[in-house]
């Protein structure tokens, strides 16, 4: 069999593994195997390329295989080592940042390919140039955007945006596209304009993500993810390489759908997220003027819990911020040792990424059967003595059910207000992700325990041990 045929078989297997892998990844019981399967297919495709890829020079009929092997293996070694170590070392709670970073790397890779191809071979066909320039643009946008998303999640970059910027952004896209079409037609004299495309795309990527609220980053990352997919597919078009094409397009379309699904889970529209409308508007909730809150001190809280039969913990974003998952688990164990039945009520969009709470609590070795889903837990809440809300806010906000004007109206919530007692642990009366007031805090059953979640939990544990 010719080398090129073997290569195509490798690519066919690779594409197959991507399809089946994605399918398996979307079901809980097969997700892990799906990931490994796709990784295997990727390995086959990469190895196949190095071993069997050939270029034929049509003029001389000469066949050239992949050269510069030392460089290639060196680069792969560096990438593998760095990628593996950083992926293994990153804290579970910093996963979204990590995904964003890796996504950016993919985008940059696509952009670099375009840069090199253009500068080395100066192709002159319109279609080919168009594809190269588009790959450069999309890859760069994805790279720059991902870096900003990373910065926001690391809380190093603040939200910033205005109505004017929206307009500028749109103009910029059209300007870049116009420029691309222009230089795609031209001959190689305009080739240096590629750097303008590169720079403008980077600026656009930055401006695109800047105004979007930090908490919306998972959605943005998912969107940039599908951008990188498209950039990869353009590479596949360029080299007539089917595995790049299928892999890229699959991710491009699946990523787009996933982005929409993620928005739906938060009861938002994609447009609403991308225009940064949420972080800008916010604050349109029921007024809570005239209502008063009641506080509870640590001793009373400890006593209330210790003498309860059933306690349910509702973890939220604040738990992650305070890195209080281990302390929380200890708190739960102490309570259990006093004969209290403790469960966790996990809301699907608690925290800042889907599954955030599961990941967080799993990291602290909370046994899986203790984690209950929203639908499972709600019917039992009226028989629950104490619901302890730790750093959660929106996911227990009754406005989602009662106030049609609220931005979270329609989102299913954990009905903490139906329990016998509610203790809310947070630092202040600060708002949550949606930026709205929460009537639950003013409920007669509710007592506030102010302070950092981790610190409060530690005090509670100490108190409990002395009860």
């Amino acid at each position, binding site marked *: 069999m010719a080398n090129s045929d073997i290569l195509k078989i490798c690519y066919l297997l690779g594409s197959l593994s991507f399809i089946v892998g994605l399918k398996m990844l979307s079901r809980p019981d097969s997700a892990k195997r799906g990931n490994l399967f796709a990784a295997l297919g990727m390995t086959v495709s990469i190895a196949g390329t190095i071993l069997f890829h050939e270029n034929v020079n049509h003029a001389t009929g000469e066949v050239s295989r992949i050269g510069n092997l030392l460089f290639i293996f060196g680069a792969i070694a560096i990438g593998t080592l760095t990628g593996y170590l950083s992926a293994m070392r990153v804290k579970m709670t910093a996963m979204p940042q990590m995904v964003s970073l890796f996504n950016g790397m993919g985008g940059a890779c696509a952009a670099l390919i375009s840069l090199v191809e253009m500068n080395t*071979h100066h192709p002159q066909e319109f279609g080919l140039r168009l594809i190269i320039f588009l790959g450069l643009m999309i890859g760069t946008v994805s790279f720059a955007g991902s870096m900003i998303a990373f910065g926001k999640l690391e809380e190093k970059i603040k939200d910033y945006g205005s109505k004017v910027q929206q307009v500028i952004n749109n103009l910029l896209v059209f300007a870049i596209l116009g420029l691309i079409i222009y230089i795609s037609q031209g001959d190689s004299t305009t080739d240096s304009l590629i750097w303008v495309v590169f720079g403008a795309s980077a600026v656009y990527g930055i401006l695109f993500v800047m105004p979007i609220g930090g908490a919306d980053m998972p959605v943005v990352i998912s969107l940039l993810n599908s951008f990188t997919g498209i950039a990869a597919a353009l590479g596949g078009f360029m080299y007539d390489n089917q595995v790049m094409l299928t892999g890229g397009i699959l991710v491009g379309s699946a990523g787009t759908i*996933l982005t929409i699904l993620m928005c739906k889970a938060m009861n938002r529209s994609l447009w609403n997220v991308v225009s940064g409308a949420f972080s800008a508007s916010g604050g349109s909730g029921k007024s809570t003027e005239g209502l008063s809150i009641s506080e509870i001190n640590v001793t009373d809280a400890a006593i209330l819990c210790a003498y309860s039969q059933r306690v349910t913990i509702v973890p939220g974003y604040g738990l992650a911020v305070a890195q209080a998952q281990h302390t929380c688990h200890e708190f739960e164990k102490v309570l259990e040792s006093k004969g209290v039945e403790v469960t966790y009520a996990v809301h699907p969009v608690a925290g800042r990424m889907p599954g955030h709470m599961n990941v967080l609590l799993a990291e602290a070795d909370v046994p899986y059967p203790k984690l209950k889903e929203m639908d499972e837990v709600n019917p039992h809440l009226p028989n629950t003595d104490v619901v302890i809300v730790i750093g959660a806010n929106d996911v227990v906000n009754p406005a989602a059910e009662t106030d049609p004007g609220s931005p979270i109206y329609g989102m299913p919530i954990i009905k903490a207000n139906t329990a016998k007692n509610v203790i809310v642990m947070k630092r202040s009366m600060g708002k949550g992700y949606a930026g709205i007031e929460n009537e639950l805090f003013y409920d007669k059953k509710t007592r506030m325990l102010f302070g950092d979640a981790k610190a409060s939990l530690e005090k509670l544990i100490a108190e409990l041990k002395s009860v």
Partner: protein
Amino acid sequence: MILLSEFQGFLTSLDIWDISFILLLAVFLGIEVISNVPAILHTPLMSGANAIHGVVIIGSIIVMGHTEPDNYFALTLGFLAVVLGTLNVVGGFVVTHRMLQMFKKKK
């Protein structure tokens, strides 16, 4: 200024159409394959998809593999591209694996 054979098959009328069909089918397949995923798998799925588009690394290997050994500009950028692509692939799959390990089976 010659079109190198790297683009040998490019835009011959047969290819572009076959590729369009691949495109059409892959777009729909991507949509269908994902459409019933539960919310809790959104993040691992995103991460897995992220690893898969790392297939772009193949492009960078092709670039590197056919670059003249004295073209330092191309070598440098190509080298960087392979490193970044590998990061995307390896990091992507490993992170996904770690995430999924967190979702132990409900007994």
